[in-house]
């Protein structure tokens, strides 16, 4: 069945409303989040009108936003931060580290920190070098911290509740373009692939075609899921290459166990992400999957994300590059 989901941004917005309705102690801090604006990407629209005390518009102070949210979380609240652009997470790294290491046991035992830092990320909007980055890779292996990606293959409400249930802070990277794309509920668009969620909440989304064989497994976070689906669809239709797609909402810690159970023996793996080269999430995944497995990485190329659309396109991960990497993976 072809998906006709609502837009992912709307669905996330609704999930936040749900969260704030169910949790009377939840707070959100962000820049320009008040109605009628509702945040630069409108994800918080309506929230401040319904929960005026708990939705706070902050000055331009990313470190203080995250710090104050972590103070709320230390005191037992659910706290959500909306960064305007994920790029500015670089201004709050110390605060993130403190919250994470408190959760991990700085004071002798894990202390629950229910904190989600929302990070609108990625390029393809022509915003230029300082507003287009995918910095998730730099936060992998920061003790006490989880890294998630907004995903069309997952319910955002489930993603948020999973993050909070961890009892440790998490960064939620939200691809800005994906806000405007449909969710994969009830099924992924295109009608070729069908999927299900496997493993502990929020689960790994497994997408297959009914082909009786798998030539390649493509692993990605939610940020690149639409591009991967498109690439896999084209590979199937034009080149008879059959991919299984695994979409992760939680990219770190990597759910090695669930993923390993979904890899047919001997089939090569492609790990897809939008980040620039070097120290990527894919390298970490490749290591965890073990030396016995052929793993090919797909990511953006270059060192800066240009503003001009045609230059940006040449740098950022796209459908063609995913296809090329899959072909490369299955070629040997």
């Amino acid at each position: 069945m072809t998906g006709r989901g609502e837009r992912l941004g709307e669905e996330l917005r609704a999930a936040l409303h749900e969260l704030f309705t169910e949790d009377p102690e939840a707070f959100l801090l962000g820049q320009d989040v008040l109605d009628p604006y509702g945040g630069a990407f409108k994800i918080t629209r309506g929230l401040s009108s319904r929960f005026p005390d708990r939705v706070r518009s902050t000055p331009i102070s990313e470190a203080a936003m995250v710090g104050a949210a972590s103070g709320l979380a230390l005191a037992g609240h659910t706290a959500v931060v909306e960064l305007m652009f994920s790029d500015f997470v670089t201004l709050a790294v110390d605060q993130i580290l403190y919250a994470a290491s408190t959760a991990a046991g700085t004071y002798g035992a894990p202390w629950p920190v229910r904190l989600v830092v929302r990070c609108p990320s990625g390029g393809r909007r022509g915003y230029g070098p300082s507003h287009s980055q995918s910095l998730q890779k730099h936060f992998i292996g920061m003790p006490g911290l989880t890294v998630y990606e907004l995903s069309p293959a997952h319910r955002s409400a489930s993603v948020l509740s999973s993050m909070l249930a961890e009892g440790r802070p998490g960064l939620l990277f939200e691809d800005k373009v994906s806000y405007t794309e449909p969710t994969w509920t009830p099924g992924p668009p295109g009608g070729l692939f069908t999927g299900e969620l496997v493993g502990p909440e929020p689960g790994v989304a497994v997408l297959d075609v009914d082909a009786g064989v798998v030539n390649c497994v493509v692993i990605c976070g939610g940020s690149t899921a639409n591009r991967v689906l498109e690439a896999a669809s084209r590979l199937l239709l034009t080149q008879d290459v059959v991919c299984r797609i695994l979409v992760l909402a939680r990219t770190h810690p990597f759910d090695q166990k669930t993923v390993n159970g979904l890899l047919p023996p001997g089939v090569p793996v492609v790990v897809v992400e939008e980040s620039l080269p070097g120290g990527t999430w894919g390298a970490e995944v490749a290591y965890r999957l073990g030396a016995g497995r052929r793993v090919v990485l797909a990511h953006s190329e270059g060192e800066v994300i240009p503003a001009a659309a045609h230059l940006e396109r040449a740098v950022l991960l796209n459908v063609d590059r995913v296809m090329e990497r899959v072909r490369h993976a299955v070629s040997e």
Partner: protein
Amino acid sequence: MTNAATTRAPKRHDLGDLRLMMRIRHLELRLHELYADGLLGGTTHTCLGQEYVPVTLAPLIRRDDDVFSNHRGHGHFLAHGGDLRSLLAEILGREGGASGGVGGSQHLRAGRFRSLGVQGQSLPVAAGAALHHQHAGAGGLACVYVGDGTWGEGAVYEALNLAALWSLPLLVVVENNGIAQTTPSAAHTAGSIGRRAEAFGVRHVRLDDMRPHVLRPVVTPVVAGVRSGTPAVLEFRTVRVGPHSKGDDTRGEAELQRVRAADWFRSGPAGEREWDEVSDAEAERVGRAIAEVLARPEARWS
């Protein structure tokens, strides 16, 4: 806090000032049109209403000074010697762009002029550039533009502290348009910018007028002071006539009317015959530049 004295000022705009202000104005107006026509991608923050600020400063800043601009930097760029076509080419992604099509609207460069779209973080960098000028001993300075909302960033205070402690030739230019994106100053700044600057031992001058020829006599000695090691904050009380970026203005009609009424462009003083002539001439100049740049091939990047 000093308030701009307006006594000794000449009566009329200097023609050069007026041309530059008009050029910036027509550029920004055309950018909104280009955006509406789908010819301009990405993001762009126009400085409608604020053009006179860099125009006031332009003749006081030397080519060997360092200038750090922000997201709203087209006017700064043009006033501080940037080329109109290279700006357009950058914004439109054509050959010959100021930053090769990489930086885009928020990351422009021309000589020692650089803009940066991450609020507040250029202040420490500017302090370092000022340290360079202090060391070089040639009377240079570093000038950095920031908005009012940007005073939420801690980096601003770290830099002010350094500047005052080390007597750095740092000129902080605040374009206080009373709003940050959608947030009015009262909701983002407790106390005041003036008191904050002074609390760090940094000279602060508030400027309410919007005419370069009136402002410049007030500003000139302050800039001279900066060059000899007295850092200063120039706070221009100004208005943002347009949206924050593109079509995102949440202000009510009354506020918009107030803002438009204060716009220098609409309130051209009586008796300035050149006003319309200059406006037309600059509109045409910008139009020609746009046509020329749109005809160029796309930027290539090595």
